[in-house]
């Protein structure tokens, strides 16, 4: 789960990390009130979960009220890589002379958290990692002990941060690690940390992702997650408790188990179609869940045809079939053609129960996907 910049910065500020003065605004008037308080220059920053906001036109620096009004008007409501901007962070501009990158994340290969510092801040750190990996200093943390303060200092010095600000940067890094641990973060990144002409150190951006599996013990962050849905379908999936990812194609996909659903997406693509979504109904789904899943996919206007692929282990084919019937019998006219493939536990019973007036049935995964792709093509032609 991704926090918005303003959410992450409020956690930073509470923990004592210096951040620029800022206000959240949802209208041009609110943005103008904010700049009146903060002064100029002021950055107007789109609050959406999209990387490269600056390049895409989602961050502008206003030097007077007229510019602030124009930029706020431009950015609010704009479409940024498929997401509509409905709030902006209005933030005091920082007069900086140098930029750093600092981050804390989980190194999967090592199974340990890792601190990262680079003097090549302000640019895409993944590009730095590829073109000049030595420009990033790293320090692994033993998860049983937590961070020793010397480690934060060591990695900052190793990165070549200017001596006069090194201890301040180390202190920020130490605090970021505490935030990482306390909030069950999966990643925290500040890019850039700005160093001002007066040699002050300021966290000018904030990326903070939370481990969704830990939200059960992070109630405050779970509330923030509520506020961070950016799409009605994603919100609906959150309410139903589905693993759901919206994509840009027109073949709706429902299945059980992440690996098999991913494979179904891949096959849709392989046979010349375009997947509209990833939707995993999980293990042991009962009829009601199946109905909810169909409701999700039917609610997506982009979907022209649906493939429903179940390989039952703890999920039972007869339960799935009942759910499909219940969902579809409620319609006078089936909104989108549904191809069903059932295998595994109680698949035969399921096939008998399925109302084949309402759905098309295939025996193999490959056949089911090809038929759904064809159905989608027929709609678009």
């Amino acid at each position, binding site marked *: 789960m991704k926090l918005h910049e303003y959410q992450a910065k409020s956690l930073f500020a509470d923990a004592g990390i210096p951040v620029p003065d800022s206000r959240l605004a949802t209208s041009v008037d609110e943005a103008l009130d904010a700049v009146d308080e903060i002064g100029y220059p002021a950055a107007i920053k789109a609050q959406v979960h999209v990387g490269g906001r600056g390049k895409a036109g989602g961050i502008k620096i206003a030097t007077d009220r007229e510019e602030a009004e124009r930029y706020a008007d431009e950015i609010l409501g704009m479409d940024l890589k498929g997401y509509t901007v409905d709030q902006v962070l209005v933030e005091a501009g920082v007069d900086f002379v140098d930029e750093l990158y600092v981050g804390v994340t989980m190194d999967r290969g090592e199974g340990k958290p890792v601190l990262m510092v680079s003097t090549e801040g302000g640019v895409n750190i993944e590009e730095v990692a*590829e073109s000049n990996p030595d420009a990033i200093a790293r320090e692994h943390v033993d998860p049983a002990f937590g961070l020793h303060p010397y480690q934060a200092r060591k990695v900052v010095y190793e990165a070549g941060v200017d001596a006069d600000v090194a201890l301040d940067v180390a202190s920020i890094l130490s605090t970021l690690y505490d935030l990482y641990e306390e909030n069950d973060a999966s990643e925290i990144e500040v890019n850039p940390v700005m160093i001002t002409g007066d040699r002050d150190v300021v966290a000018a951006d904030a990326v903070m992702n939370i481990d969704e599996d830990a939200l059960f013990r992070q109630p405050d962050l779970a509330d923030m997650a509520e506020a961070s849905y950016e799409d009605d379908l994603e919100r609906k999936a959150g309410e139903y408790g589905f693993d759901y*990812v919206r994509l840009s194609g027109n073949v709706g996909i429902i299945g059980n188990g992440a690996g*098999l659903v*991913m494979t179904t997406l891949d096959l849709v693509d392989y046979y010349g179609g375009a997947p509209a979504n990833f939707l995993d109904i999980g293990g042991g789904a009962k009829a009601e869940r199946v109905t909810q899943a169909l409701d999700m996919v039917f609610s997506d206007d982009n979907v022209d045809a649906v493939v429903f692929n179940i*390989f039952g282990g703890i999920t039972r084919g007869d339960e799935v079939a009942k759910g499909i019937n219940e969902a579809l019998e409620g319609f006078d006219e089936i909104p989108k053609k549904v191809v069903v493939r059932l295998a595994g536990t109680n698949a035969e019973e399921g096939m008998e129960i399925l109302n084949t007036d309402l759905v098309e049935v295939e025996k193999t995964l490959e056949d089911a996907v090809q038929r759904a792709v064809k159905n989608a093509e027929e709609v678009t032609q």
Partner: protein
Amino acid sequence: MSIFVDDDTRVVVQGITGGEGKFHAGQMIEYGTNVVAGAVPGKGGQEVDGVPVYDTVDEAVEAEDADASVIFVPPAFAADAIFESLDTDLDLAVAITEGIPTQDMAKVNKRLDETDTRLIGPNCPGIITPGEAKLGILPGNIFSGGNVGLVSRSGTLTYQVVDNLTERGLGQSTAIGIGGDPIIGTSFVDALEAFEADTDTDAVVMCGEIGGEDEEQAAKFIGEHMDTPVAGFIAGRTAPPGKRMGHAGAIVSGSGTGTAQSKIDALNEAGVPVGDTPEEVADHVEDFL
């Protein structure tokens, strides 16, 4: 023969009195697995399906000589349950639980370095040696005994591939689901190493997915150390960067790392054919044998 489990494996089920634990303990027993004990705090002295329950894993091992555990404990308490099995020096612990916080698993991972216990999972379907033992939630009826080893990050995708194999008469020596989380106990390399050493495994299927670099490391291992032929499959070719595809570990993070293409390329370079469909994976295995 087989790897990690066989008909001598003596199993304690942690969480046997819960809904899932009870159901799957029953299924494991029905399959012929030696389920010798359950372990649930506060439930010592009870019985589930004729299996005696103890308050601690330690007591279960002491009384019933268990050497492996299967963990069906809710996510909030699962890391503690794994620590309990590791600290009891079992040979094997299989963690089925999905949704354990990653930072908890980092601590478990640290402990794993210091013990001889093998952990499989978490967030996995378990392990099965057809006809001998099943530790986990895999549907026993789709498997058949044979000489194909299978290792996979996913549950239902494993079933799909096994179904394709079994339908052609290609039975399995052992099938392992290693789990879809970012931090797991048994890696592809660990499983491949065991299959390579197993004289009754003549071909291996490896089903990977996007995220992390486990598949790339496995490819390197295969290229350098394996004579047994391996066929591969990689799920998530169409996954966009930055989106978690169900599994906590299935996410393409940076540019170029963890993508399906980098994994497919690495496997191809190691001489591993990668199927475009599960059916094609079975084709490759058929060619090997």
